[in-house]
């Protein structure tokens, strides 16, 4: 079943400007983890705002759960989507961690007596249960982003969109969020994740990768396929994920590592333990 479907979407911020998104079409299946990757200015963040209805496309149709997104049902369909933005500071609305998670629940009119359990539960899931009463100024970027994810998840979305959620974080914050996403995926296989990123390592974890270039879909496919072609990646000024890079370079040295999926398996080929 298609969770999100974009049909021939075009968008420009004003009539005279060139389109930042040009005739983009793709489908995201239920329970899949799809990455949209592209360079700065490739229109990928605009795409997230289009899908959640913060912007309206000039042309084309967006379907959420096979329902056409219109100005009438945007609030209803939006409830199915959780969105995590790039800047950890600009999406922290509450005065403390618990208030911030509660913000979405208040909007949904969840009774007060149920809120505490939901907040504790989701704070625990993102590992922020000890920080419930802390103010945002006393949290790191990664912690704020985890709170944002908890806030989005607490509303039980069917789709989670991460709009460059890790791009402003330090390496530790980045890998924490990556781990968290993979764990979420494991715990809730029905959750559809659409991750918009320019971090190839993050995109490598996903089931499918869509490469955007200048507002157009340049590539679509499994990460192994998309990231194996060095020339194409370079033409889009994208790097190769570390593991693909390593495999590629080792393959050039005539090592037989085609079947290896991770670093440990490669190590096993290079230095057999027996």
């Amino acid at each position, binding site marked *: 079943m298609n969770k999100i479907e974009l049909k021939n979407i075009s968008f420009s911020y004003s009539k005279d400007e060139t389109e930042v998104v040009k005739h983009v079409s793709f489908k995201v299946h239920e329970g899949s983890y799809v990455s949209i990757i592209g360079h700065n200015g490739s229109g990928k963040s605009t795409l997230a705002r289009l899908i959640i209805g913060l912007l309206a496309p000039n042309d084309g149709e967006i379907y959420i759960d096979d329902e056409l997104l219109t100005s009438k049902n945007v609030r209803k369909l939006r409830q199915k989507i959780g969105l995590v933005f790039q800047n950890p500071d600009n999406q922290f609305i509450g005065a403390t961690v618990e208030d911030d998670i509660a913000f979405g629940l208040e909007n949904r009119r969840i009774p007060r007596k149920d809120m505490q359990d939901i907040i504790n539960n989701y704070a625990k899931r993102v590992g922020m249960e000890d920080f419930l009463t802390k103010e945002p*100024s006393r949290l790191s970027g990664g912690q704020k982003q985890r709170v944002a994810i908890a806030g989005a998840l607490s509303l039980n979305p069917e789709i989670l969109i991460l709009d460059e959620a890790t791009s402003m974080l330090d390496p530790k914050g980045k890998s924490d969020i990556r781990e968290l996403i993979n764990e979420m995926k494991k715990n809730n296989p029905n959750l559809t994740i659409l991750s918009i990123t320019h971090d190839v390592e993050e995109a490598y974890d996903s089931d499918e990768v869509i490469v955007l270039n200048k507002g157009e879909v340049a590539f679509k496919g499994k990460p192994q396929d998309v990231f194996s072609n060095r020339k194409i990646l370079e033409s889009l000024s994208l790097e190769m994920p570390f593991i693909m890079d390593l495999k590629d370079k080792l393959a050039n040295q005539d090592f037989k590592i085609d079947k290896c999926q991770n670093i440990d398996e490669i190590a096993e080929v290079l230095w057999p333990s027996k």
Partner: protein
Amino acid sequence: MNNVTFGRYTPYNTFTHKLDPRNKLFILILLIVAIFFQFHVWSTTLLLSGAFLILFILMMLISRVSFLNIFKSLKSMWFLIIFLLVIYVFIPNKAYEGTPICYQFNEHYAIYWASFYQCGYIILRIILLFCLTMVLTSTTKPMDLTYAFEWYMTPLKLIRFPVHETAMTLSIALRFIPTLLDETERIMKAQESRGVDFGRGGLGKKFKAIISLIIPLFVSAIQRSEELSDAMEARGYDPRAKRTKYRKLTFGWRDAIAILFAGAIFGGVLYLFILDRTGTQIELFQWIFKVNPGF
């Protein structure tokens, strides 16, 4: 940027910290009104002010408010104090005529001792106000204060005043103060590294330096607000829709004690004031100490 210390919330766990913010706000207003009653008999007013000062110092001790902060903020008030002195002492006032003279310039113009008393009394009242607000702001989270404001403004909903929106705006403004302070500091450093000098130079130069700070700050604040509104909308915020509330203010036994105590003080002072206005001379000093204060 970190010298904005006046009345900043300190996270202790005292009696005052545990009070309902609505209650604290109400008590604050009661006590402020009580401070401003002035009696016909000088010594009574002064004695009451002294009593209030002792009471407030006790309150500050209970709430673990730092006294150092009070002195720091008073230090920045020297201008106001000089201004008050000049106004009270040098501007002639008919009310002082006939009271002891401090210095006689000529037959039309003199400085009276009473004007000094009056000025001192005003300064004392300002200090009292300072202490009171200090106790409130350093024991109450700003956010709790907005909840209290929202609660008090609820009746205004009848005249279609956007109570909820106002409270939300206020709370977001409070939430972003530290963020924007950080931003200011960052921009200042960035501009300083480009040669802007915020510390020295004449008025024109300083003004130019400030402009180079204000404009980027505004641009970034506006960008932030746009992203924030997107984030709020993405999480289903609708200002017109009904929302449930996570924060609940509770009026506990501590609040009952505090309001009874404050009410008793206010009632007592009000009673004395009414007696005073209906013609009774309130010689409080004499009643208590059995001696004449002499002025």
